[in-house]
């Protein structure tokens, strides 16, 4: 296999706060090849967005501590200068954000905002050339009547169209890596499908390496090649799409999969959910942070296992759970499908 385009090694991001250090990202590893889609999945606060923003240097702040390594084509980014990072943003790594309603400046025309991005990197582009380029981009992402709509303001676009414009802006300089941070979360379902389809097409056409951040496994199933499942700042399981969906090893992944609604199965009388809520990063339980919510907790759980390959036939499929593969295969089946049992009732008088 050729050298990866983007390589993230032992990435750790902590923020000093008045109540202590919040370790938002704690040891994330993955490689990304051209044309590949890696999905990072997890609940709010699991560290997925911080991981993505750290890659393009948007989490740099006085109170941030960034360790580990992010390499783009062999070049280290975590300690690159601000000017070098600025040149790289938009040009080599572009980002699409979650909420298209608030991600454009409301006071400038959409076309002008995209031209601004182009001219930040290619100062000799004339306004006219830039505008022409935006029209092409709008056409490429399927915005009808592109020649007229470049002069619209953001509030004159619908949410789906705005997200298309966002993607057009990300593609303006033909980047190598696209980071999509919950690109469909703020959109309704039919528009979601269109936007995902668009990302998939572009990914194939331009051989674009893509990091897709989402909490929606349905989205992951559509487009991802490989999946990282994050919980409380740590990767709890990672593997190929098929491995994660058909042979999940970590109880948290089971829970995520179990809470998907599926049209091809009988309707459960209640939508399954994972009990409890994620722990505070300032007050993590000893050992496995998922322990308090996990019905399969046992004596080894107060120690946190490393992210290791625990299956004999796959070296890439890693997880952090002490249960043996046989136990996992047995325990993850709930009423004939993968899921997480309801938690044991503890301390009920």
């Amino acid at each position, binding site marked *: 296999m050729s050298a990866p385009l983007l390589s993230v090694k032992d990435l750790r991001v902590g923020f000093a706060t008045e109540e202590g250090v919040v370790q938002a990202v704690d040891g994330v590893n993955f490689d990304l090849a051209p044309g590949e889609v890696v999905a990072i999945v997890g609940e709010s606060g699991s560290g997925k967005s911080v991981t993505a923003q750290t890659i393009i240097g*948007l989490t740099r702040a006085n109170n941030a501590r960034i360790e580990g390594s992010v390499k783009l084509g062999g070049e280290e980014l975590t300690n690159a200068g601000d000017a070098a990072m600025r040149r790289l943003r938009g040009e080599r790594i572009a980002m699409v954000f979650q909420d298209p309603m608030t991600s454009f400046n409301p006071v400038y025309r959409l076309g002008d905002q995209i031209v*601004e*991005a182009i001219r930040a990197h290619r100062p000799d582009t004339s306004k006219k050339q830039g505008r022409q380029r935006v029209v092409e981009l709008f056409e490429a992402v399927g915005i009808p009547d592109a020649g007229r709509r470049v002069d619209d303001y953001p509030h004159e676009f619908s949410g789906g169209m705005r997200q298309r414009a966002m993607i057009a802006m990300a593609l303006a300089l033909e980047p190598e890596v696209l980071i999509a941070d919950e690109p469909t979360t703020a959109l309704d379902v039919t528009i979601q499908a269109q936007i995902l389809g668009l990302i998939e097409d572009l990914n194939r056409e331009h051989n674009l390496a893509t990091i897709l951040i989402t909490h929606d496994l349905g989205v992951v199933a559509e487009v991802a090649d490989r999946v990282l499942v994050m919980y409380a700042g740590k990767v709890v399981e990672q593997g190929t799409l098929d491995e994660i969906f058909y042979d999940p090893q970590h109880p948290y992944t089971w829970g995520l999969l179990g809470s998907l609604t599926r049209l091809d199965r009988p309707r459960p009388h209640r939508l399954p959910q994972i009990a409890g809520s994620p722990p505070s990063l300032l007050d993590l339980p000893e050992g496995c942070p998922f322990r308090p919510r996990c019905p399969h907790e046992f004596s080894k759980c107060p120690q946190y296992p490393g992210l290791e390959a625990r299956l004999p036939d796959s070296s890439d499929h890693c997880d952090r759970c002490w249960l043996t593969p046989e136990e996992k295969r047995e325990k993850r089946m709930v009423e004939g499908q993968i899921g997480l049992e309801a938690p044991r009732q503890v301390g009920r008088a």
Partner: protein
Amino acid sequence: MVRFVARRLVGMITVLFAVSLIVFVVFMVLPKQNPAQSLAGKNATPLLVKSIEEEWGFDESLPQQYLTMMERVFTGELIQYEPRIPVSDRVIEGIPATFSLTIGAAAIWLFFGLLLGYLSAVRAGGWLDRILTGVSIAGISIPVFLLAPVLIYVFANKLEILPNGQYVPFSEDPTEWLKHLILPWITLAVLSIGFYSRVLRSNMLDVMNEDYVRTARAKGLSERQVMTRHVLRNSLIPVITLFGLDFGATIAGTAIITEVIFSIDGIGNYAAEGVGKFELPPIMGVALYGAFFVVLLNTIVDVVYAYLDPRVRLGETASS
């Protein structure tokens, strides 16, 4: 945009009409005293009162009285009787001094307010921010009637580098005009500099957390471009509103204290004189003049606001 401006102008005329009605009701209808008596002044002869009564037609219906009043206002026949001078003459006479004072002060406070606010916001939490915060709070806290005598004492009486008041017309001697206005300008601007820098700072800190600022960074703009084109640009919108209102209010009357302390013969001084001598015509005249500028500046603010924030141009299609 043309339709928007036209709508605002119609609104402006409506408000001015309402203001003139209020002036009429407050000064002519509500007081128990004979309005002719109030118009004539404290030491008026019965003959004068009688003639005013006839001229203003106080025996006619109220709508007719209102029309007569407005006719007199517009034809320059709103007259003060001791000495006998048309109010409009005195207002027009006062305009150069008042405008020199207020426009100059407004330019100074806007420039320094925005500069200090911007620096404070960009360096939020640092030592520069802390110093500027202290300076701003001090500026906001010093009342004009204290600041002005202190400035006069230090710069006019002790150091003797600036005159202690009076107004010299620009056409007469530009250098003296400037020298005479420096202290009044500072007096009038200090409070607003402090206030505006605080407002801009807090607006900018809010805007910095907006998603579109993150987008601006993500597309590779330099920190300065992010700060000026996105953060500052969007933070200015509420400041412009504030400025329009404050500027209108300053022209209309906030400058009175400064004009009186520095003996500047502007409209503020005229108003103070009118109030002191209990003369109705100057008070009415200045009230209408002040209302006109407040409403005018408000209208300008609305139009500028629509220019700065496209979302405000309601009821319009994208193409117009």
